[in-house]
């Protein structure tokens, strides 16, 4: 065991965990004032539920020994993380089975847990303002179980690292996805598209104004995502080494270039460089460099990032032509950015980077390009089809969408019995129109529940 590597991976896991609250702010600021809490709760719900599922059987499905074809890990091998404790005692050194490379398996469990969480949370941006919370939680659990955990096995489980046999994308196809362009972003983006189709458009979409209610929250969220993403990418080296350092730099510079690319498109197309454009460009760049951060040079990263910013800025308008209410552009940013970043490895990979592969532009021919395309396509199709099935199954049984009048009233109040902002603070927080003081309300509430207030 290496203590430096372990310290870096544990710190990276905490950085990646912060990305989900960051995403909640990023998404929350983009919706209307009457729906911000529900938007943020979908992320916090994923944080709560997926943490538990990951420990119970998620890690085992992703990183247990392959059950056949590189499709799935054994759900029972590490059930409840049994067998991963420092069986010889920390002071006496770890047993071989409780190490992943140079770090304790538990550090790897922690690091990969937060990937599963944010992938589920990312989907929620496609269905803003209209999904019942309970069915969302049910969807999250089912989706993580039959879509994310298997796909994480395909992409992240290397032979001999966590178990003897890993997943097919990582070990047979040999597609390069360093930190999750396919498993996280294409996966969540395709699921977002499917779920937006299942749930349908919001009441008044393309007619009523649905502009972001708080852009400073969006900017803060984008900043936290950028910060946490250094754990996501550089932490994926699983070591505090030169690769982590190179990845850190490619992640930074691609993101800057993507923000510039998005702003340039806006300046020429719309006349103004906007703050939402800067925040969106940051995320587009981070998405695109995620699979490619270990295989491109810093100059290659600038190209990958800048093109990601331009492509995603152009892609976010497609939903109006497709008439699909992907509310916060999960498709335009994560699916398009994820596909671009994954395919870009086939063009821009340079063997001078740590992945050691040459892409088309560096004399490597199309060998890596087709591997990247197959990996991206497989995850896209699997996630899209499975999500449609899960989504329709929930819709047809318990129902997924809130009532129309509840949607108009605002999902924060109707689903959570809360509102984000006190617009009548000068009256002490109670509405003058309700005719009751706060204390009277509490008293009545307490009596109704049969307790002494």
């Amino acid at each position: 065991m290496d203590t430096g590597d372990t310290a870096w991976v544990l710190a990276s896991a905490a950085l990646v965990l912060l990305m989900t609250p960051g995403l909640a702010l990023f998404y929350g600021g983009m919706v209307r004032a009457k729906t911000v809490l529900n938007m943020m709760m979908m992320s916090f719900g994923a944080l709560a539920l997926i943490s538990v599922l990951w420990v119970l059987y998620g890690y085992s499905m992703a990183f247990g020994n392959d059950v056949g074809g590189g499709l799935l890990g054994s759900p029972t091998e590490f059930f409840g993380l049994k067998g991963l404790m420092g069986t010889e005692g920390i002071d006496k050194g770890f047993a071989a089975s409780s190490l992943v490379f140079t770090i304790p398996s538990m550090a790897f469990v922690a690091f990969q847990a937060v990937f599963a969480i944010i992938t589920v949370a990312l989907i929620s941006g496609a269905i803003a303002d209209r999904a019942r919370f309970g069915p969302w939680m049910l969807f999250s659990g089912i989706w993580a179980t039959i879509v994310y955990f298997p796909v994480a096995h395909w992409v992240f489980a290397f032979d001999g690292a966590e178990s003897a046999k890993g997943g097919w994308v990582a070990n047979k196809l040999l597609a390069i996805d360093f930190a999750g362009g396919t498993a996280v972003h294409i996966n969540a983006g395709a699921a977002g598209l499917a779920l937006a189709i299942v749930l349908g458009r919001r009441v008044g979409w393309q007619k009523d104004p649905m502009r972001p209610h708080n852009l400073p929250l969006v900017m803060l969220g984008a900043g936290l995502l950028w910060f946490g993403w250094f754990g996501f990418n550089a932490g994926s080296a699983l070591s505090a080494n030169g690769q982590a350092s190179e990845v850190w730099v490619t992640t930074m510079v691609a993101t800057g270039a993507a923000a510039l690319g998005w702003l340039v498109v806006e300046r020429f197309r719309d006349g103004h460089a906007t703050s939402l454009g800067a925040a969106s460009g940051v995320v587009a760049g981070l998405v695109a460099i995620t699979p490619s951060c270990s295989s491109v040079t810093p100059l290659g990263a600038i190209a990958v990032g800048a093109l990601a910013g331009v492509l995603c800025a152009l892609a976010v308008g497609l939903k109006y032509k497709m008439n699909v209410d992907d509310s916060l552009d999960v498709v335009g940013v994560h699916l398009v950015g994820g596909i671009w970043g994954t395919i870009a490895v086939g063009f821009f990979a340079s063997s001078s980077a740590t992945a050691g592969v040459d892409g088309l532009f560096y004399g490597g021919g199309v060998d890596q390009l087709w591997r990247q395309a197959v990996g991206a396509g497989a995850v896209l199709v699997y996630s899209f089809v499975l999500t449609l099935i899960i989504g329709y199954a929930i819709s047809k049984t318990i129902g997924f969408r809130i009532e129309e009048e509840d949607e108009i009233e605002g999902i924060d109040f109707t689903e959570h019995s809360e509102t984000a902002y006190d617009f009548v603070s000068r009256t002490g927080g109670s509405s003058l129109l309700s005719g009751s003081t706060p204390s009277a309300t509490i008293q009545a509430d307490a009596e109704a529940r049969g307790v002494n207030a």
Partner: protein
Amino acid sequence: MKIVTAVIKPHKWEDVRAALEAAGITGMTVSEVSGYGRQKGHTEVYRGAEYDVALVPKVRLEIVLDDAEVESVTEAIVAAAATGRIGDGKVWVAPIESVVRVRTGDRDESAV
């Protein structure tokens, strides 16, 4: 007695308040309101999607006065609030039937 109501640009509110103080006006009611006139709002762009924002923020002030003060106060507001550009706002005057001061019960002219 009259009530003078003025709807002005928010950034001219301090100028108008100073002008009214100079004219001897000691109290008023101010509210933040929104609306539109001939300028018809404006357009905002989010991720390339254009939104027509019809309502423009304004400040509304209401002052109850003796008839004799109305003309000078109206002129003071207009002079302080004007920028010469579209959206400067409006000032209007309406009659008041009666006024009561809540603390003392004073009525009409003595309550103004």
